[in-house]
């Protein structure tokens, strides 16, 4: 997990032409967008360089807010500054940093004038590490130890008080990450007067300094999470008086800029959650309430319990929860109503959007109905394609990347730090209720207009293949499991499929879909029965993961193309309604079929091929042998 801190893995990976794109940036909006990736120190420096250039060229920097940070440290902070300024862009800030040279701390304390005079500084970061304190360990000597704690805390107080008096700025005061090298091992913590003992007591005293003017920044917590052994780098200290490993500069900068962001009113207040494979394992529409995985007793089920518990804790903290899921509304709500192991219930959800419209439209509608700006929303979804669509269409929304293991979702979401707080009041805890958690459903007024460009950007490639022995077991699995996007819900065993595979009277298709985000695997299966000049679609099913991607259209085009080669003039499709396949009720109508017959048990649809027009689609076809 240490690479989360090193590589900021909740942010999306860099696009290939990143350096090129950054060169072409000409305004604040574009720079803000390019700052939302996994940037290392060098890339942050590029953002910094570009920002300076845009400032000189007097380019439009909205929506960035100007902010000035003073920086005083016993260490060399010159390398950190570009990272800080680059990271601040990610948090919507155009930051200026004023450094005080590291040998000028005493001067800052005792002179009437401040090194910060002449600047309009809102916030000053005091970054003193253990080497900057007058620490004087004498193991075993409690009295001397207590005295030394006072000395160290006095020193920090002198700096903060003097700065507050002279500048009226808000202070961010770091606490102390203790050194790795403990002389007594585990006992060091207990033994008065050791450096570890001193550091932990000093940190308790630093906590007491937290006030309206001073905010304590838990660098000890950050360093511990990273591992003190990774955090402290004696080589770089000796070489350049840099106080921690440069690998963590981007993360450290995040920590600082999150606070600055919150101080500038840029905080996230709403978490929108996907359902299938995000709040529970499995697909509710296919697997049913008894088939989804949630609850103790199963390792995966427990992972989803942990995610729901986390969402619940956020709810209790005042973060508004909402749902956006591609599902039938009543099916999606069922676990919330009736599943015994669910932590979240409808009463915890402010808006509940389960439908088949695109998520960008749904999220926009949620934001509007809650009167929240898009920049206060976080969206959690296991599906990389949904994440990409939201990032593309609604760039103000925070969309964390997720690892493949759901057990790691809670950590990933929280390390991303979207819900950073600098205070907590009773009002905060009640805020979620203010939004009336009644799981309301809202109508979408205007649907996303940009679907086409999104679909094109996915660079989809569909592979069409006849049934074969390699695909057989996956085909059988899809046929026995798919309930939602399944026109006839006919079940075949693997043996029966092997028969169909060989039978000349059937036209069969297994369809796989690749896109820019990876391989989706087999996502659709079709079986047609050939009857002279007419083909009858016996089975047509598709994974709901690729819904809204126009896959069904490309599948139909494939069927028609091949049917025409055999002189077929008409295709017949059947829809057999079940409790779960409402989603394909209008399937044939949308594809241009005409209804020939319909009652409650079945519908028969027809398509004359002579008038069929092959429209261009955003999916490339790859016919495998």
């Amino acid at each position: 997990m240490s690479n989360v801190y090193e590589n900021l893995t909740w942010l999306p990976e860099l696009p290939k032409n990143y350096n090129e794109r950054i060169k072409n940036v000409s305004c604040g909006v574009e720079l803000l967008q390019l700052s939302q990736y996994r940037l290392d120190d060098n890339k942050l420096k590029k953002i910094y360089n570009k920002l300076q250039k845009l400032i000189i060229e007097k380019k439009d920097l909205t929506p960035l807010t100007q902010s000035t940070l003073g920086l005083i440290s016993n260490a060399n902070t010159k390398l950190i500054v570009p990272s800080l300024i680059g990271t601040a862009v990610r948090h919507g800030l155009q930051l200026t940093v004023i450094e005080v040279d590291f040998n000028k701390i005493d001067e800052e304390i005792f002179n009437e004038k401040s090194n910060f005079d002449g600047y309009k500084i809102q916030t000053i970061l005091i970054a003193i590490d253990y080497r900057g304190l007058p620490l004087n360990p004498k193991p075993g000597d409690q009295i001397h130890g207590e005295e030394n704690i006072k000395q160290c805390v006095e020193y920090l107080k002198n700096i903060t008080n003097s700065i507050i008096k002279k500048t009226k700025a808000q202070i961010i005061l770091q606490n102390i990450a203790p050194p790795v090298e403990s002389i007594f091992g585990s006992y060091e913590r207990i033994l008065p007067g050791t450096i570890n003992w001193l550091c932990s007591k000093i940190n308790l005293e630093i906590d007491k300094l937290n006030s309206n003017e001073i905010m304590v920044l838990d660098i000890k917590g950050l360093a511990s999470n990273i591992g003190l052994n990774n955090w402290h780098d004696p080589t770089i200290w000796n070489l350049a008086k840099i106080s921690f490993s440069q690998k963590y500069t981007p993360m450290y900068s995040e920590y600082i800029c999150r606070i600055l962001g919150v101080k500038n009113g840029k905080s996230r207040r709403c978490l929108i959650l996907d359902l299938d494979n995000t709040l529970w394992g499995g697909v509710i529409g296919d697997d049913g309430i008894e088939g989804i995985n949630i609850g103790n007793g199963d390792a995966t089920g427990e992972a989803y319990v942990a995610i729901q518990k986390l969402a619940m804790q956020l709810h209790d903290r005042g973060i508004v929860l909402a749902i956006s899921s591609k599902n039938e509304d009543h099916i999606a709500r069922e676990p919330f109503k009736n599943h015994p192991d669910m932590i979240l219930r409808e009463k915890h959800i402010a808006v509940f959007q389960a439908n088949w419209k695109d998520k960008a439209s749904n999220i926009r509608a949620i934001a509007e109905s809650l009167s929240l700006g898009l920049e206060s929303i976080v969206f959690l979804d296991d599906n990389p394609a949904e994440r990409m669509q939201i990032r593309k269409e609604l760039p103000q929304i925070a969309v964390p990347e997720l690892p493949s293991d759901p057990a790691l979702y809670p950590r990933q979401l929280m390390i991303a730090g979207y819900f950073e707080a600098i205070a907590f009041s009773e009002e905060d805890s009640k805020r979620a209720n203010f939004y009336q958690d009644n799981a309301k459903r809202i109508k979408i007024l205007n649907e996303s207009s940009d679907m086409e460009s999104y679909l094109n950007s996915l660079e989809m490639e569909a592979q069409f293949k006849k049934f074969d022995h390699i695909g057989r077991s996956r085909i059988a699995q899809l046929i026995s499991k798919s309930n939602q996007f399944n026109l006839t819900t006919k079940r075949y065993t693997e043996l029966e499929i092997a028969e169909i595979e060989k039978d000349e009277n059937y036209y069969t298709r297994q369809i796989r879909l690749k896109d820019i985000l990876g391989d989706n695997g087999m996502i659709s299966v079709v079986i047609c029965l050939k009857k002279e000049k007419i083909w009858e679609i016996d089975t047509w099913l598709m994974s709901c993961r690729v819904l809204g991607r126009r896959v069904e259209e490309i599948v139909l085009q494939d069927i028609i193309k091949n049917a025409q080669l055999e002189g077929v003039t008409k295709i017949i499709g059947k829809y057999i309604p079940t409790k779960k396949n409402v989603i394909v009720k209008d399937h044939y109508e949308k594809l241009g079929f005409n209804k020939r017959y319909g009652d409650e048990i079945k519908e028969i649809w027809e398509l004359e091929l002579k008038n069929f027009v092959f429209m261009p689609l955003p999916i490339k076809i790859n016919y495998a042998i």
Partner: protein
Amino acid sequence: MQERKTLEKLKKIFNEVFDNEEIIISEETSAQQIDEWDSLSNIRLFVTIEKEFGIKFSAHEIAELKNVGEMEKLINIKIRK
């Protein structure tokens, strides 16, 4: 073969660290020939090399290196270990 690869990678690192695509390095290249190569960016350079190659330098090693050729040699020794 390995040597060639290391120099190739180093070139990319130089372009990235100094934010300049035009920098061309050879084994004789030293800090004097690259304007952006000062003591601060030197730290950034070594941190990036350490990360890219998964190695670690001592302060002494960093101080002793005279040019890119020596850097390359040292990296190759370290990655073979």
